C-alpha cells in the first residue's frame, strides 16, 4: 500500500486549495463550492486514517468512515443554509459580489 503520508498530503493540498478559493473569490457561490472542497479534504483525512487503522493501532477501526458520512450530511445542510443567506443578501444588496458587501465597517 502507498504510505499514509501521501493521503495526508493530498488532503492538505485540497484544503489549501479550498482555503484559497474562500479567501479570494468574488462570487459567493464559488465561496460555497470552495468550502465544500475544504470539507472533502477533511473527509479524505478521516477515511485514510480509517483504512490504515490496522497498521497504526492494531485493530481495524471504522470510526473514520462513519465520520466521513456524518461530514457529508452536515455539508449538505450547511450549503442549504448558506444559499438561504445569500438569497437574503441578494435581496438586500442586489448583488452577491463579496467585495461590494461591506456595511459592517468603520
Amino acid at each position: 500500500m502507498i504510505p499514509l503520508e501521501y493521503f495526508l498530503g493530498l488532503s492538505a493540498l485540497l484544503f489549501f486549495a479550498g482555503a484559497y478559493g474562500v479567501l479570494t473569490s468574488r462570487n459567493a457561490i464559488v465561496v460555497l463550492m470552495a468550502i465544500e472542497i475544504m470539507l472533502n479534504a477533511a473527509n479524505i483525512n478521516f477515511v485514510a486514517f480509517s483504512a490504515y487503522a490496522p497498521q497504526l493501532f492494531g485493530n481495524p477501526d471504522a470510526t473514520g468512515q462513519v465520520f466521513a458520512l456524518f461530514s457529508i450530511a452536515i455539508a449538505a445542510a450547511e450549503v442549504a443554509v448558506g444559499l438561504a443567506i445569500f438569497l437574503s443578501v441578494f435581496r438586500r444588496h442586489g448583488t452577491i459580489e463579496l467585495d461590494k458587501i461591506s456595511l459592517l465597517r468603520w
Partner: protein
Amino acid sequence: MAFTGKRTPEGGAYLAIGTAGGAGLLSALVIWEVLTDPSVIATPVIQEITWLRVGGFDLTFGIYLDQLAVVMLAVVAIVGTLVVIYSVGYMHQEGPTRPRYYAEISLFIGVMYGLVLASNYLFLYIFWELVGLCSYLLIGFWYERPAAAAAAKRAFIVTRVGDISLLVGLIILFTQAGTLSFSTLFDEAARPPIDPGIFTLATALIFGGAIGKSAQFPLHEWLPDAMEGPSTVSALIHAATMVKAGIYLVARTYPLLIETPDALLIVAAIGGITAFLAATEAVAANDIKRVIAFSTISQLGLMILALGAGGYVLAVGASGESEGYTAGIFHLLNHAFFKALMFLGAGSVIHAIHTNDLHAMGGLGRTMRITATTMMLGGLSLAGIPPLSGFWSKDEVLLSVYSAGSVHGLFYLLWLLGLLTSLLTAFYMFRLWFLAFSGKPRAGHAGKESPPVMTVPLLILGSLAAISGLILLLPNGIATFLHYSELGLGTGPTVAPFDRLTEIFAEPLNLLSIGVGVLGIGLAYAVYARGWIARAPFATGGLGRIQTMLRERYYLSWFYDAVGTYGMYGLARAVDWFDLHVIDGVVNGVAWVSVRGGRSLRRLQTGLVQAYAGMIVIGVCGLLILLFFLLPALGWS
C-alpha cells in the same frame, strides 16, 4: 447683632457696649478678687473640661488664670469697653454698616478674652487665628476703598507667615512633648525631656508667631498700612490688644524660653532692632495715624527687648529673677492705655477736620481742648516724663536691658538702641502734637471739640495713662505681683514706696533717660513750634534722601512687594506652566494615544468577510507555528 442690628438704635451699639461692659465687669470682679487675696493665684487657677478624646489623647478646653492673665484681662476689659463707647460717637454717621462694625468688634473682644484665658497652646492658636480674622475684617471695614481692602489682605497675609511659624513650632513641641497644655508643659517634672536643639528651634518658631502678630521686624510692614481702618479699630486692635497678643505669647512661653537662652537672644535682638527702626520711620511720617502706628511697633519692640533681656539673665543663671519680665508686662499695661488714648485722640482730630495729613492741621489746641490735653498727657507719658506712667515702665525696661549687658555684650548695644529710640520717640510724638495742635490753623478752620461720648473715654484713658505707672510704687505693686524667678511666675519681695522711689531716682541711667526724653521734646519744640531750627535743609540733598528713605519705610514694603510679585508670582507661574504642560500633557497625551490608536485599529474592520476569514487563517497558522516549532525550540513542551 449682625442680624438684628438694623432695628436696634445706633446700629447695635448699645448691645455691643452692654456685652463688652458685661465682660469687663466680670474681668473686674476677677481682678478684684485676685488683688484682695493674692493667694488665690499662688498657683495658677486652672479649670478645664475635656473637649475631645482621640485614642488616648485628651483635648481640654479651659481657663488658665495667673498674674499675667490678670494683667491682660485688665487691658482688654478697660480698653475694649472704652473703645466701644467711643465708637458710638465716631461711627455715628456710618449708618447702615454699623451693625457689621459692632458685630465684628464684639467678636474681636470675645476672642481676645479667649486668647488670654486659654489653658493650652491649641486653643491659644485657635483664638490667635480668630483674632487675625477679626483684624482683617475690621481693617477692611470700608472695603469699597481699594487701599483698605489691600491693607486688610496685607495684614492677614503677613501675620499668616507668623502664624505658620507658630504652628510649626507648636507641632514640633507637640511631637516632642506629647502635650500642649500649659500646666503640663511648664512643669519641668511632668514634661518629657526634649532635645535642646529641637527645643530651641521650637521656641524660636513660636516667637516667630509673635513677630508676625506684634509687627516686629521683618514682619512689621502690615501695621502702618492697617491704619486704613477706623481709628477705633486702630486703638483697640493695633495698639492695645491684638498686637499685645504676641507679647503675651512670649511671656506665656517664658518657662520654655528659659530653657533655651539662644532663642532669648534672638527675641531681644529683634525687639531692639524693631524699636529703633520703627522710631526712625515715625520721624518722617506725615499721616497722624501712621506716626502712632510706628510708635506702637517701636514700643512693642521695647517690650520684646525687655522680655528677651530679662529672660536671658535668668536663663544663664546670672540672676535669680527676670526684671525684664516685669518691665515688659508693666510697659504692656501702660502702653495699652496711652497708645489707645493717642489713637482715639487722633480719631477725634480726624472726626473734626476730616484729614489725616499732619501738615494740613494746626492750631487745633485752641478749639479741641480736651483732645489736645489728653494727647499731651499721652505724649508725655510715651516720652517717659515722670510721674506719668510711661516713665516708670520704660525705665524698668531700659534698666533690665542694661543689667543684662554684663552677661552678654550684645545687650549694651541693644540698650543704646533703646535709649536712642526713647530720644526719637519723644521727638516724633511732640512733632505730631505741635504740628496738630499749635501754631496757626493750616486747614482753614480749627475744627470743634468732639461730642462727650468720645471725649469721656479720652479723659478716662488720659487719667489712666497718668496714674497707671504709680502701681509700681505700691508695696505690693506690680513688681511684686509679676515677679518671675526660677520657680516661675510668683510674688516677689515687697518694697516700701519711699525705698523704691529713692532707688529709681538715684540710678543715673534713669536720670539719663529722663534727660533724653526732655531733649527730644525740646528738639521738637525748636523745630516745629518755634521754627528756631529750619526744616528746609532736611528736605533736600543728602539729608533729604535720608528723609525720603525713612518715608518710604526703608523701601521694605517695596522689597516685600517685589518678592511677592517676582518671587512668589514667578514661582506660581512656573508651577502653573508645569501643571499646564507637563501634568496636563501627560493626561492629554494618554487620551491622544488612545484616540489615535483607536483610529488606526478601526481600519481593520473592513466589513469584508473574506478579509476576516483571512485573518483567521493567518492567526491559526501563526498559532500552529508557535506551538509546534518556536516554543519547543525555546524549551517549552
